[in-house]
């Protein structure tokens, strides 16, 4: 394992200190328990939008803390959900009197810890709502799994709901909007290589040079299917076809296309994939109105990518375009 770290046990806290040093104008970092909080929190009268999850997905979630997006993020250990006391600390630090909306990726650990935190916060008098994000079409949603995972769609939910809270929408409206975005977003990912969790020290799985893993999550967990490596055209089809069939997205739809790197795939390859996805969508009569391309929800140094497609309407376009000022997303300011 070659990584720029001092100690596998202090990776998250060391990174948080560096993040605080890099963005003193945007955010504050609390430790014990670890929370990344918007610099001007709590914002009076505004719904607090809070997310969190395991570390190793940077810039998710801490990189999205700031004006127009998240009020706080709770970073767990690498690939491990945060604990309820972190979530409680985030709720307390951001309580502007309008309640808190917890945006939670659908993983058993995250759900159980946020659920416990919501019960504790409610007992202390803060109105807390939780919306689960489950956009990964690779997982069969049935009685026989923990349900679909939250992946790329999370970034879009956080941006859009953050913008709504910023413009003054109340807790009911923010919650309803979050559910609406979740209902209209689908994602799928592929890995070309595995990644190495610092405290494990070896790759989470191995792929031969001529293989790729389709349907991976964002935790270095294996996917559903291992297939021979293909040119970019084929890889993009493997991701896009199941996404479009699932919702389904149909001719005439207006969409946001998010082409995401898992961390190790460079932008030059990502642009190749994005161009192919745009062409395939155009061929189906689906209009790409907004796009996001880059490493925004990663899996450490994994090579691979994910595609996320969100169905748009006028309100969602307006909220996507609204000003945002965070470490990872910044426009309109």
């Amino acid at each position, binding site marked *: 394992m070659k990584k720029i770290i001092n100690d596998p046990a202090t990776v998250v806290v060391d990174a948080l200190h560096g993040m605080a040093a890099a963005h003193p104008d945007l955010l504050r970092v609390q430790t014990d328990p670890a929370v990344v909080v918007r610099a001007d929190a709590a914002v009076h009268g505004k719904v607090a939008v809070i997310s969190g999850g395991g570390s190793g997905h940077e810039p998710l979630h801490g990189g999205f803390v700031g004006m127009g997006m998240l009020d706080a993020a709770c970073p767990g250990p690498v690939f*491990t*959900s945060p604990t*309820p*006391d972190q979530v409680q600390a985030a709720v307390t630090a951001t309580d502007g009197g309008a309640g808190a909306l917890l945006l939670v990726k659908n993983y058993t650990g995250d759900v*159980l810890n946020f659920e416990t935190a919501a019960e504790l916060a409610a007992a202390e008098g803060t109105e807390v709502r939780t919306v689960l994000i489950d956009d990964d079409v690779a997982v069969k949603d049935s009685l026989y799994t923990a349900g679909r995972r939250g992946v790329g769609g999370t970034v879009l939910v956080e941006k859009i709901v953050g913008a709504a809270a910023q413009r003054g929408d109340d807790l009911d409206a923010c919650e309803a909007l979050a559910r609406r975005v979740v209902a209209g977003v689908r994602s799928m990912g592929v890995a070309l290589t595995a990644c190495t969790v610092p405290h*494990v020290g070896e790759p989470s799985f191995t792929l031969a040079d001529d293989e790729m893993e389709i349907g991976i999550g964002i935790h270095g*967990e294996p996917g*559903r299917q291992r297939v021979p490596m293909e040119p970019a055209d084929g890889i993009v089809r493997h991701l896009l076809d199941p996404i479009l069939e699932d919702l389904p997205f149909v001719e005439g739809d207006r969409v946001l296309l998010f082409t995401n790197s898992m961390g190790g795939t460079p932008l030059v390859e990502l642009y190749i994939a994005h161009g192919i996805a745009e062409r395939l969508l155009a061929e189906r009569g689906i209009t790409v109105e907004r796009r996001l391309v880059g490493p925004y929800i990663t899996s450490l140094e994994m090579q691979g990518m994910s595609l996320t497609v969100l169905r748009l309407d006028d309100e969602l376009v307006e909220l996507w375009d609204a000003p945002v000022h965070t470490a990872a997303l910044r426009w309109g300011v």
Partner: protein
Amino acid sequence: MGCSVEGVVAALRSAAEVVTAHRDELVELDRVIGDADHGENLKRGFTALVSKLDLSEPPATPSAALKLAATTLISTVGGAAGPLYGTALLRAATSVGDAAELDAAGVAAALRAALDGVVARGKAEPGDKTMVDALTPAVAAAEAAAASGSTVAEVLSAAADAADEGAASTVPLVARKGRASYLGERSANHLDPGSRSTALLLRSFAESAGGGDR
């Protein structure tokens, strides 16, 4: 012979040693069908628990010791295991009440309460390839042993033996809860890490109570 608060604290310290000794094994089991954090998370939680036991006033009752363990694990473990083991210990603490000493029936009742808590929180059923597959037969064995007049140590030994068998029974199963469920059929032919840690914890309690191994 019953189990005093000192006995409960000794059992928790014994659990910390066992979890630390088996950290790599649990990480490896989880790496194959999960996300390689189970051993690391439990070690972090039980290490924090030992620090609290070392640094703070000793708990006054078995219930207080179990509650300290519950809150510590909930706030330090993360993952699914934190809330699940935390809830288990919290329900066990409630079940014990203000008793100064636990008898065999009290231990069996605490284990039953722990299982009910895990099922309520995680919503897994037997056969889903989770810690419930180890804990369910363990509770049944503990209750049977307590009903037949066994000691606390014998009750815990019976529970640990049944948990070992329950954990082994997860190998052929296809996971239906937790992160391994995303693998579908590919989760079969692997030991479930949560059921393994449950069996390890019960064995550590049994050995601490003087029950030895089988």
